[in-house]
Structures are given as structure tokens and as C-alpha cells.
């Protein structure tokens, strides 16, 4: 499930073209954003909570090696096995090795953006292992052979009728059925069988607590728990940034996470894993995959504060209208656009430009990542590293020259206004100028303000 490269504007254009679907997608996500607003309004210390969450994360990042070691030590003391992976490949190899050790062939997996980032599923499938995504949304996209389009709402781009068709084909539901209750129930029955038959369970990690060595996984469906508790082996995969210092810190993060993500006060299940159950194995895989590099980039390091709530996607006016798949990256939306270039600048050079820099993402972020500022900074960085298109570079250079000189500026301004007056069709019509495809240009005035101002001043003097 990888993306064929298609730059954001092109992919987004395809998505926008279906106006009715685009509007529906926008409304669905706006609905979640509005729910988030309503519930956040009921928390009187909301802004203080955000400050606290941000401060805890900032502190943790500045002491990350110490906390990770503490976490590891505690986890081992509780009978958990800890593994470290430098990159996606090593992560996948570790998981495969663990599964092979116990001969596990059937795996259930709950939502983990890290395993998406590492493309774990295709890797395991190549090695003859069946992986079933058990989160309903993830199961839907898995059956469609698509990546999730949203980190919290993986199937937000799919309509219930399409789910109905899909389930009819794969789960044998009635043809034409599209009632969410009915379809969810069918998935429940289908996945119960998978849970009961699974040899091993893979989950993500929302928070790993250094002081105890425990970790917390949050779901609404209960799929992480059913998987982990019923299988003989539980593998939990986490990025290095998931660690927090203390159990008490969970009070802050769990108050923010679900409210920001879906507008719920808390997820249905907040499961705290500490030790393997009797007769079972528990493993934690701690993954870098570019995160230590991001830690070293001063302008971008605080993106590692992210708790993957997805609020920035729900609020992003661009994401809502371009859809998650137009970002050609496992994590879409504003946060994805600042994380992705860290891993591969060339591949993701277009993503930081998929924004109007409206700043809504930064204001909604529960851990106060300055997302829109980082988008701006990535633009500078990518240009400096030579990833800007040549034509754009030339145009910008010219513009810089003109605007540096009042004379050239006045001259060009006059010329531009004249040209527009003489050849309005040039810029208004046709596909040559994307401004004019669906928009008129302003009426061109006779005089610029400075010309008017000069005229006024000389009239005053001559009076």
C-alpha cells in the first residue's frame, strides 16, 4: 500500500473535482472539529492544559535518552522484552523475527501510524503472514487496498454505500445494505473470529511512561485489548517520542487527547499495560526512523511533541478539501507535511506548500506545535536545499529585484496595470493563468495610490 507519486496540487485537484464528495468530506471533518470545540469549551483550564502538555513534552525531548533508558529498564524489570530499531526496515525485521520465533501466522493489529510509516503490513504479507487490521476504519481501507487517509479516522474519505459494497464482497453482507449499525455489526462478527484465532497481536503505543515502564493504548472500539489479551504474544511498536516521564503526566495528556481528536472526554478504553499476562510474551519495539535527525533540527524538533490526535487535519481547510490521499504520505495533513520532509526532502518537497499558513493547526494543537511556522520554515529549507522548481526560482528572483527598488517597482506596477487594461483577456481567460480560471481580476485603476498621493501633495503645494 504505497503511493504512486503525484504532487499535492494535482492529487488535490482530482479530489476537488468531485464537488459533492469534496463538500461532504469537508463537512464530515468540520463536524469533528465543531465537536472538539464544544467539548474543549467545557474545560475551564483548557489553555493551561495545553501549556502543561507542551512543557512536559519539551522537557522530555531535552532529556529523551535518559527517559528512554529508564523506560527500558523498568519494562525489562516487569518481564517485557525491549527491542530498538534504527529505521523502518529494522523495525519490520524485528517484528518478523519475533513472530517467526513462535511460528505465528495470523496476526491482528490495532491502529498504529508507526507501522503504517514503516509499511509493516506488506512486509509481513510478503513473508507469508496474515495481518488483519482490526480498527473498523483501518479494516475498511485494508480491504480496499488503500492506506488510511487520516490518522484517527482512517476511512473518513469513504461513503457508507461504498463500505456496503465492500462488505458485501468480502464479508457477505446483504447487497445494497449501507446502514452503519448493520455494517459495523458484520465487521464485529467477522473480526471476533480473527481475534479468537490470532497467534499474535500488534498494537501501537500512545504513551510510554519512563518511571514505570508501562505503556498506554487508547481505543474506542476495544480492538487493541481484544487482540493483546487473547493472543499469546503482544508486540507494541512505538516511536522514540512516545515516552513521557511520569504516570501523573497521563492526567494531562488523556484529558487532551480524545477531546482534541474526536470531541470525546476520553476514549472508551485507556489501557495500561505493564507486565505480560501469565503464559504470554510482551515485546516493545522502540523505533527511530528519522526522529533523532528531526530532534537535531532546531526549527523542526518540536514537531516530535505530537500525540497524533489528528486535530490539525480536522481543522485544516486545505486537508478538508483535498483529502488525505493527496499528501502521498502515511501521515497526511499539516502535521504530516512537517514530518515527511524530515524523512525524504525530495519526495515530500511539495507538502509544506499545501497550506495557506492560516495558523488554525497551531491554535488547535493540544501540545502547541507551531505547525504553520514550521511549514513556513520548511519552505525556506527546501528552497535552500535546491528542491524548488527552476521556473519558480527565476520568477521569485525577479520579483525580489523589482521589489528591492522603488523605481523598478513603480515602473513595473504602471506597466502591469497598463498591460492588464490593454489585454485583460490575457490574464483572465484560459488556462495559462490559474488566477483567471475561476476568478476575475480586480478592475484596474487609472492611478496607483502613490501617484494619487503625489498629485495631492503637489496640488497642495501649488495652492
Amino acid at each position, binding site marked *: 500500500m504505497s503511493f504512486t507519486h503525484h504532487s*499535492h*496540487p494535482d492529487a*488535490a*485537484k482530482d479530489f*476537488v473535482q468531485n*464537488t459533492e464528495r*469534496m463538500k461532504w468530506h*469537508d463537512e464530515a471533518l*468540520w463536524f469533528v472539529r465543531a465537536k472538539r470545540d464544544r467539548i474543549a469549551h467545557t*474545560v475551564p483550564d*483548557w*489553555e493551561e492544559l495545553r501549556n502543561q502538555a507542551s512543557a512536559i513534552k519539551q522537557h522530555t525531548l531535552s532529556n529523551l535518552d535518559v527517559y528512554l533508558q529508564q523506560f527500558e529498564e523498568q519494562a525489562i524489570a516487569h518481564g517485557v522484552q525491549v527491542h530498538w530499531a534504527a529505521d523502518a526496515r529494522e523495525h519490520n525485521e524485528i517484528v518478523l523475527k519475533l513472530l517467526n520465533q513462535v511460528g505465528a501466522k495470523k496476526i491482528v493489529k490495532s491502529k498504529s501510524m508507526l507501522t503504517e510509516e514503516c509499511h509493516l503490513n506488506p512486509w509481513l504479507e510478503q513473508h507469508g503472514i496474515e495481518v488483519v487490521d482490526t480498527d473498523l476504519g483501518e479494516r475498511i481501507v485494508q480491504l480496499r487496498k488503500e492506506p488510511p487517509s487520516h490518522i484517527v479516522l482512517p476511512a473518513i474519505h469513504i461513503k457508507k454505500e461504498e463500505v456496503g459494497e465492500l462488505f458485501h464482497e468480502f464479508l457477505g453482507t446483504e447487497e445494497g445494505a449501507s446502514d452503519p449499525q448493520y455494517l459495523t455489526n458484520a465487521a464485529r462478527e467477522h473480526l471476533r473470529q480473527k481475534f479468537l484465532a490470532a497467534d499474535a497481536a500488534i498494537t501501537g503505543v500512545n504513551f510510554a511512561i519512563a518511571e514505570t515502564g508501562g505503556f498506554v493504548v487508547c481505543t474506542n472500539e476495544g480492538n487493541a485489548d481484544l487482540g493483546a489479551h487473547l493472543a499469546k504474544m503482544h508486540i507494541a511498536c512505538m516511536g522514540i517520542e512516545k515516552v513521557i516521564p511520569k504516570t501523573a503526566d497521563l492526567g494531562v495528556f488523556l484529558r487532551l487527547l480524545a477531546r482534541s481528536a474526536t470531541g470525546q472526554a476520553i476514549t472508551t478504553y485507556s489501557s495500561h499495560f505493564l507486565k505480560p499476562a501469565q503464559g504470554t510474551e510482551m515485546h516493545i519495539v522502540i523505533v527511530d526512523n528519522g526522529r533523532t535527525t528531526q530532534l537535531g533540527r532546531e526549527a523542526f524538533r518540536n514537531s516530535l511533541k505530537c500525540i497524533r490526535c489528528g486535530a490539525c487535519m480536522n481543522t485544516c*481547510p*486545505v486537508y478538508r*478539501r483535498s483529502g488525505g490521499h493527496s499528501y502521498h504520505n502515511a501521515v497526511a495533513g499539516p502535521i504530516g507535511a512537517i514530518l515527511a520532509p524530515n524523512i525524504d526532502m525530495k519526495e515530500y518537497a511539495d507538502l509544506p*506548500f*499545501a*497550506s*495557506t*499558513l*492560516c*495558523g*488554525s493547526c497551531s*491554535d488547535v494543537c493540544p501540545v502547541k506545535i507551531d505547525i504553520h511556522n514550521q511549514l*513556513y520554515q520548511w*519552505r*525556506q529549507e*527546501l*528552497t535552500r536545499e535546491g528542491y524548488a522548481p527552476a521556473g*519558480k526560482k527565476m520568477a*521569485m528572483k525577479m*520579483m*525580489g*529585484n*523589482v*521589489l*528591492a*527598488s*522603488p523605481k523598478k*517597482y513603480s515602473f513595473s506596477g504602471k506597466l*502591469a*496595470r497598463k498591460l492588464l487594461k490593454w489585454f485583460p483577456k490575457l490574464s483572465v481567460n484560459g488556462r495559462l*493563468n*490559474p*488566477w483567471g*480560471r*475561476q*476568478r*476575475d481580476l*480586480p478592475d*484596474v*485603476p487609472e*492611478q*496607483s*495610490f*502613490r*501617484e*494619487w*498621493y*503625489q498629485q495631492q501633495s503637489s496640488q497642495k503645494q501649488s495652492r
Partner: protein
Amino acid sequence: MRVALFVPCYVDQFYPKVAIATLHLLTRLGVEVEFPAGQTCCGQPMANGGFEDYTKRCNRNFVQQFQGYDYIVSPSGSCVLHVKDHLHDDTNETAATTIRQRVYELCEFLTDVLKVDNLDARFKGKVALHQGCHGQRGLQLGSPSERMLPFFSKPLQLLQMVQGVEIVPLNRGDECCGFGGTFCVTEEAVSVAMGNSKLNDYRQNGAEVLTGTDMSCLMHQEGLIKRQQLPIRVMHIAEILAGTT
């Protein structure tokens, strides 16, 4: 009090009436305004496009033009925010720093510096206020809908002083219009979709006039309005506050 008027380049060239209204408004409020004649642009178009490095000489010109004033006032939240956040000049960083601290968007200059509580202005019509993002969230001209703060809006506060203005409520009060500088051409499809959502919101709520603190957002939305021949007039907030209908 020496006050300089900073007129964004596209306002200078395409919307001189907005700068004239700003000048009249300030003059009527007893402020003596100067227009530094050699000003060009704040450099935002290059910088937001990823070419901050090409703004050096543009910035230097800005500093030369605007140093020495007590206040620099502009009818644009976006350009003011850019100056506040990104104006630097390695040949005269002290002056650049001072300018960053002294630059004001028109509305905040009226409410925070002049402390205007009364405008002798009239305007009849149902007005929708577009809260440009850079003003709203960047300069905090109002409480952004994402933040859990007591409600305030400096532009709204001023509009309410104008006799006859009827403010229409919006479904998504501070949603971005999709202008976004070069974004409006590089991501034309999404940009237009965003703009159209705004227009639907205005129409659903019966707005006759669209106003805002940024002519750039308004230019984009006006472009759509004109192409679709919608019955909405577009005016910069300075024009309404100046009462020049």
C-alpha cells in the same frame, strides 16, 4: 506622534481607494500621516514561497523607508504580520527590530493606540466580516475559534461603531478563504473551493457586503464573486469605517 502609512504593494497598484480611505480615516481621527514615497513591499510573496533569501534587499528598503517613525500603520493584517515576524536587516538590525515592534494593522492601531470609542461614520447594509487569518490568529485581532478565550474582535468592535451597519453572523466565522499568497495559483483548485465555501456562508446568512482587514483575501473572494456575478459588494474595512460609501 510621527505615523507612517504602509500601503501594501497590491493595494497601491490595484486598490488605491483602500489606501485613500485609510488616510482619510486616520486624518479625521486627528493623526498626521506620512507616506514614505520609496516604499515597495514587505517581501511576503517571496518569503511564503520559500524564498526568504531573496527578500534581503526588499527588507533593507523597508527599513530605510520606515525607520524613525513612532508608528507604522497599514490596512493589512497579513503584511503587518509578515513584518512583525520576519523583518530583518543585517546592516541595520536595530532599526528593523524597532519597526517590528511599532508596526500596526489599522484596526488594532485604532482600538489599542488611539483607543477609539466613537466613529462618526454611517454605512447602511448587511455586512459579513471576513477575519483574515494572519490578522485573526497571527496578530490576534480577535479570539480565534480554536482557542478557549473570552470572545473579542477588534474589527467587529469598530464596525459596531458605524451607524447603520448590520453584522451578519457566519457559520464558520474565521475559516480561511483560501487566498494564501502563491497558494491561490499553485493550488488553484483547493483555493477556489475554499473561497466558494466562504461565499456560500455569506449568502446563506444574507450578507450584502463583504468586508475584511485584508484586501488580498478580499481580492480573491471578489474575483469569485464577480465571475459568478453574485450580489455581494466587496469593501475593505477602512472604507466602511471612513464612512465613504
